[in-house]
């Protein structure tokens, strides 16, 4: 799956895709009388897509191990708070450090539970989702008792929430994700373990240490998603009652859609495009006048189902 060699075959799909998106955007804009292609709207779409891409890249590693982590949404909320607090203390550096550190800690906890407890990852993730949601709610509670709301990141520190900061981080993230997943020993080993642990072990891949490092890498990407989201939104409220699951859905749909196209386009690279596509759909629905948080979620659920079905086609094993 490398880009080197086969220039025509590998780059062509992307070129086609970009053209398709541009055409689509223009058409939509015409239909909605110019409401679509406004600067603010495009910016919002791109930033949302970038944030979802980071989560989606994290998910690539999770899926590579055949795990499914449902706690990522709640984890991101916690990451956002850590990032915001540290950011307000020491500036943009704090935003980044707080985000990544929190991400690494939380994902490492998750991966350790997945790896050692033998509990199916979706259930364990569900449990951790509750724990993280509770932690976020507790933090909000403490803040409230001090007469404050949850952290509001100061505008001047939010350089990663808009151009050019956001795009620089995106470029770095894309490069890192591509290299790690496709071209590093880690990525190769992780994908081997997920595909056939017996061969992986026989060929000398150390499973425990690989799992731990993967948790770390995953944590970094989720952490980035977190600090970028904080930079963009400045303030995020704690969600409880498993509603944080809805945070997972855009990146989840993104990965599944990217998997559908995996035969023609590299997974990592097609993710930003898939994320953009999904947010465009969201956006179109909002422009039509659908109250936010209603049918958009339904469409998203439908997307996950459809892409999930396509991605699963041809599976011969037992599926529960």
């Amino acid at each position, binding site marked *: 799956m490398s880009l080197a060699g086969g220039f025509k075959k590998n780059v062509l799909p992307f070129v086609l895709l970009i053209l398709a998106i541009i055409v689509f955007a223009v058409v939509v804009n015409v239909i909605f009388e110019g409401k679509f292609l406004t600067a603010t709207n495009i910016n919002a779409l791109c930033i949302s897509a970038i944030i979802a891409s980071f989560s989606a890249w994290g998910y690539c590693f999770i899926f590579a191990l055949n795990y*499914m982590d*449902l706690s990522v949404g709640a984890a991101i909320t916690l990451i956002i708070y850590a990032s915001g607090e540290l950011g307000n203390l020491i500036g943009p550096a704090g935003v980044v450090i707080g985000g990544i550190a929190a991400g690494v800690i939380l994902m490492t906890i998750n991966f350790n*539970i997945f790896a050692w*407890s*033998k*509990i*199916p990852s*979706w*259930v*364990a993730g*569900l*449990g*951790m*989702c*509750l*724990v*993280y*949601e*509770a*932690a976020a*709610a*507790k933090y909000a*509670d403490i803040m409230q008792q001090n007469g404050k709301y949850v952290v509001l990141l100061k505008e001047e520190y939010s350089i990663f929430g808009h151009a050019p900061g956001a795009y620089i981080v995106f470029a770095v993230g894309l490069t890192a994700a591509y290299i790690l997943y496709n071209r590093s020993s880690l990525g190769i080993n992780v994908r081997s373990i997920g595909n056939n642990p017996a061969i992986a072990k026989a060929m000398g891949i150390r499973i425990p240490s690989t799992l731990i490092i993967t948790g770390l890498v995953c944590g970094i990407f989720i952490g980035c998603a977190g600090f970028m989201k904080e930079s963009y939104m400045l303030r995020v409220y704690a969600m*409880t*009652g*498993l*509603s944080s*699951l*809805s945070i997972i*859905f855009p990146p989840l749909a993104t990965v599944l859609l990217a998997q559908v196209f995996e035969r023609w386009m590299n997974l990592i690279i097609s993710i930003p495009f898939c994320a953009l596509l999904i947010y465009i759909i969201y956006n179109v629905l909002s422009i039509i006048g*659908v*109250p936010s*948080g*209603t*049918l*958009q*979620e*339904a*469409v*998203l*659920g*439908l997307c*996950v*189902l459809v892409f*999930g*079905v396509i991605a*699963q086609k041809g*599976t011969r094993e*037992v*599926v*529960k």
Partner: protein
Amino acid sequence: MTRKKLDAGIMTSLVLLVAILVFFTIRTKGNMISVFNLTTIMDQALIVIIAGLGSIFVVSLGGADLSVGTTLGISTVVGAALADATGNEVVLFPVAITVALTIGFSNGFLVAKLKVPSFMVTLAHLIGMRGVMLYVQSVSSGFYRAQSLLLTLKNDAFKIPILIILIIVMHFILSHTKFGTYCKAIGENESVALNVGVPVAKVKIIAFMLSSFMASVAGFFMMAKVGGTNNTMGINLEIDVLMGIFLGGVLVTGGYSASVVKLLIGSFTISVIKNGMVLAKWSAIEITEVTQGVLLILILFVMILLKQRSGATARPDTLPKDPTV
């Protein structure tokens, strides 16, 4: 029921229940076990039990139905909207049930025929249907007020007998019918079930439909209790149901470890925990959620440990894998 299975699963869950009851009784200085409180607990456990009576079938075949809460919500909301529109309360019931069965069928079909993992399918329904439900509520005339027919469900004289009948019926279906046994066999080993001639796809679809159906029935009771519909109906129900099932000692893989008795013990346990926490003034959402999360992971971990220990007595009989020796 073998003595052995009784020991591991039910014993653990009973011990847990008693321990928690004792803990909270001490903490609340006896308020826990007052008659009034126990009836409150029963009342709260009711919804979880009814929904659980359907979900247990899905768990028994090794899957999960994360959409029960949303199914409860959307089936009642749509039913209520139509009852409102036609001015006839009776319409609510068949409409709600139909909506629920449709969701159940869609769940089952996607899992059984299109081979998408059950947690993903039901999760997608959870998120998707919630969106639809909120949409319907935003365009319909607001919240529905429960009328007389529904309100009869609030009456203990109706509530308790119906609950008992449901429990008995579901217990018999799970433990004493071909269908229930097939569900459990699929959970134990789906390949074996296939090789024996069990119509696996059909069984799975029916199980999911049963789960959604019971969710809508639970919805009727909830509407009666709350007085109508609102937009937080059924939220978190799936977690309570799953906890009820797992705390009762059912394995994540289901199989023959699934039983209605365990569901009852577990549902009671989770209700005691929630109730006790309120009484002990620990009702903040963060404490309830973290307790649920930690408990969920802990109980599953313990059950897996126990299963491993008892499995260690099995004689290793490793046959060479294909193709030839």
